[in-house]
């Protein structure tokens, strides 16, 4: 196994360990804790009042546009990271290129801003 793959194997092992630790602790808890469910206990909690309406309430998702904008900038970040580690090699050329790239993305942000997308209504 190569060094690179092996280092990510450790990451995998840690992921499994997290699940195992949570599982072990929940198993200990399962042995110690009582389990006496009643109908009243299993009602969704709404500050002591009986819940009104269905279980999954509808709500306006204003976050949708924010999520779309997030994808835009997150992809941008993926492009900037490799550039950032090699900036000295690229010199002025790299700097100008990235300035143009960031400028175009900023235009996008300002467009969304002017359209009133960033305003919370």
């Amino acid at each position, binding site marked *: 196994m190569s060094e690179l793959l092996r280092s990510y194997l450790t990451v995998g092992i*840690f992921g499994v360990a997290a699940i195992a630790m949570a599982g072990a602790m929940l198993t200990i808890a399962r042995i110690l804790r009582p389990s006496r469910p009643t109908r009243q206990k299993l009602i969704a909690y709404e500050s002591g009042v009986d819940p009104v309406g269905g279980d999954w*309430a509808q709500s306006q998702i204003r976050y949708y546009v924010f999520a779309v904008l997030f994808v835009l900038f997150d992809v941008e970040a993926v492009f900037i990271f490799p550039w950032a580690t090699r*900036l000295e090699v690229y010199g002025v050329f790299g700097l100008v290129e990235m300035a143009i790239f960031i400028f175009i993305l900023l235009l996008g942000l300002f467009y969304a801003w002017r359209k009133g997308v960033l305003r*919370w209504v």
Partner: protein
Amino acid sequence: MTTLLALPYWQETGIKLGLALAIIPTTSLILVYLFLFKMMAFMQSRLGPNDTGPYGTLQLIAEAIKFLQKEDIHPAQADRRVFRMAPVVVLGSTFLLYVILPAGPDAVVENLDTGIFYAMAVSSLSVLGILMAGWSSANKYALLGGLRAAGQLIAYELPLILAVMGVVIQAETLNLQEIVVAQATGEIFGFGGIGNPFIFTQFLAFLIFMIAAQAELTQTPFDMPVAETELVGGFHIEYTGFRFLLFFMAEFGTAFAFAALASVMFLGGWWIPGFDVDDNILNVLGPGVMLGKILLISFFIFWVRFTYPRLREDQLQKFAWKVLIPLSLANIVLTGIFKVVF
């Protein structure tokens, strides 16, 4: 880097895993006892817990045992499988963060080349767990809290990533160990006595990083998702017993990890002025130095938490998109210009 011990891969990983399993719950114990219990109490002119053990130090152990004995209630309407998985996903995100946190030249679980990029990637996994918890609880408060959390975490993730970029440009690497070395071998106007902690040259990035980290951890000025006065606890409202404790552990474990990232990137990490960067003694002294810096950063995080009132949801989103993101983009361009010109 020198190799401290030459062990086969499986043995070495086993030892590191054992250490990490011991350290991660301890970190949240330290933060909660020191800051959430004692410092908050003193700032509010209270005593805080003082009965259980000397100065109340065993309070959290007692509470963990209490949580172990609590009944595990699944609401009747809940999506049972997702409901059970959610806290484990959040805890997993915290665990994966600890893989790359360096505490000495060799005292690191795995020195990944993608370092800080990896940290940003796994820390955003917790959004998934929170959204799962909020959605599967089938509770109006939980759903609202989960959506608010998702909206907030993705909005503040961007300034967080973009602030890191300034450090990456200066250090020319994503690897956390090499970022520490870059600071240790740096000079401030030709004076290399204390190296060049990036907090001096990247102060704006440091401020943005700390504000965004505060929001990522949903600590108080940004605690809209868990606002107890209106959502009673947000996404974890339906969780009882040990599953609730898992969320709690993950929250403070992540706070510790973010403080560690900040001290590695901006305060010089484990390096002590006057030592060689690959001196073996730093493997012993490094963790102590790191702990000191982490506690200092955590002090500021919790100080802000206890001081400021909550931001409204629209102010919170506006602040991220209209202030922090343009500022952090400007920081990248400025750092790039300085890097190329000087």
